[in-house]
């Protein structure tokens, strides 16, 4: 397992964050963040609520704007240039805590919207791709339904498939299982694990420590807007260095 993980982690950086700061008003929410994410690397970010972990990954596709430092995604620096932002957003998939499916569109339309309008893929091809990914998340039979008719776990799997249809290079997950009923967490994690096996670059904000142990190359611990500690999952969970990390782990692992 460990061997395999190290092999798949590429050396080439796909995301580079250098000395990045962000403020919400006067509140310094991210402080001097430095992070390099290699191709096919899988990173799990954890930390107490309000630590800035969601804000960090939302900065990567510019749902939040950083005020200082640099963020480079796939060789493109994030600036105010709206064309660059749209290009990066098309390359970076995002899965939200509350799914954010488009309730007025069917599942199939949810999946084909991005490819058709952003990638200019012909409708027929987009639908084929969509069905392929729906099969993958085991939900193809629901293609004609509306999001409101699906369970939370199903909706989140659709949301993952929707991102995959854009053929992204990186997937960001913002607490993908925390809004789910407990019995639905596994079906979503299983999809994420199979995605990981295929070598997707993933940044996951999550407290699912089992998931972190089984697929992450690196676990980051954030608190107070800083990355306090990062390590491979074995050492991170077995020998946390920082006091706050120890406290946090003791709280969530019971």
């Amino acid at each position: 397992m460990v061997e395999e993980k190290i092999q798949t982690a590429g050396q080439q950086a796909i995301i580079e964050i250098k000395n990045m700061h962000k403020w919400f008003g006067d509140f310094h929410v991210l402080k001097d963040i430095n992070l390099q994410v290699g191709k096919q690397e899988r990173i799990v970010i954890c930390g107490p609520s309000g630590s800035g972990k969601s804000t960090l990954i939302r900065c990567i596709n510019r749902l939040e704007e950083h005020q200082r430092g640099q963020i480079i995604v796939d060789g493109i620096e994030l600036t105010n240039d709206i064309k660059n932002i749209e290009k990066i957003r098309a390359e970076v998939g995002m899965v939200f805590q509350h799914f954010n499916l488009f309730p007025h569109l069917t599942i199939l339309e949810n999946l084909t919207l991005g490819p058709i309008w952003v990638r200019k893929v012909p409708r027929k091809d987009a639908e084929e791709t969509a069905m392929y990914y729906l099969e993958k998340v085991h939900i193809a039979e629901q293609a004609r339904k509306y999001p409101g008719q699906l369970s939370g776990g199903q909706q989140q799997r659709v949301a993952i498939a929707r991102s995959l249809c854009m053929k992204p290079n990186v997937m960001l997950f913002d607490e993908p299982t925390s809004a789910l009923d407990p019995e639905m967490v596994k079906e979503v994690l299983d999809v994420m694990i199979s995605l990981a096996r295929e070598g997707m670059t993933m940044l996951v904000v999550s407290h699912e420590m089992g998931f972190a142990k089984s697929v992450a190359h690196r676990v980051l611990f954030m608190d107070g807007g800083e990355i306090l500690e990062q390590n491979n999952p074995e050492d991170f969970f077995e020998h946390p260095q920082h006091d706050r990390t120890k406290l946090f782990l003791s709280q969530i692992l019971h």
Partner: protein
Amino acid sequence: MQTVAPQSASTQLKPPVTSVGVIGWVKSNLFNGWFNSLLTLVCGYLIFRTVPPFFKWAVVDSLWFSTSEACRNADGACWSIIPANIRFITFGFFPSEQQWRPLLAMVILVVLLFYSQNRKRWRKSLAYIWALALVAMGLLMKGGLFGLPAVDSAQWGGLPLTLLLSVFGLTAAYPLGVVLALGRQSRMPAVKSLCVVYIELIRGVPLISLLFMSSVVFPLFLPEGVTVNNILRAQVAIILFTAAYIAEVVRGGLQGMSKGQYEAAESLGLNYYQTMRLIILPQALKIVIPPTVSILISAFKDTSLVVIIALFDLLKTTQSVLSDPQWRGFSNEAYIFIALIYFACCFFMSNYSRRLERELDTKY
């Protein structure tokens, strides 16, 4: 082995029967308790005192196709005023041998409206059909081509004028209102303040004063010799007025949208126009169907205010008939008739809006 009976006690249990027959229903709904019994009796008395006499007046004793003299000697309603004057009420001063033209135009309009009800037909071809129909209707009304004698728009009146003002008023005001609502949410200060000023100014002024301004003040600003058609000016005033109200309703819908919808659209790489067109507006406009239709209905009825700038809409033509000495005094009948026409149109709109709501409901 014993199989479970297909109809066990638990599956057989039906919801309790709340009423037994008509008497049971009456007892439990109309006479349960002294207060409700009293209400029932009072209402019954009021209905008894009003409905039969009205029925007697409107139906039993009424005259439908008679002269006005016969009417004056009768006790009942004189509906004869309608058929005797139907052409003037409907078409105003449109030359009577040409009145088939506005009639045909209205038929085209109504048929198209009904045809367009079905959302499955909302394709590009429908837009072409409408464009074609508009040209045809304009030609029918105005004439001057293909051997149709020209009819000056000063002679337009009655129902075609009311329909013209309202159908075009509403269909133009709606998109304009949506644009204004989006503008009011814009991050560009110039666009935003322009929209706010427009909306607040227009909403702060009664429609009547806008109509007056369009007919009295506006021509003062035009260069010598240039005139703008009276109907067009009224039409523009109605559009501008209604759009401001629609803008505020749509803004309410936009504010009801969750941030997650914007973020999901943006994270797919959709640009602003795509996000609005494909994600935000379809949902926001759906939420505000009920208040929007309220505004459209009231705007439809407000078109009757154009009488104050001397346009002969449906209400005005009816009033003109009533000022004819021969038919003076039969205003009840005439106004009931007009009210029914207005009611039919408004009821159609509200009915259709409910149908749209039902069709667009995706159970979220």
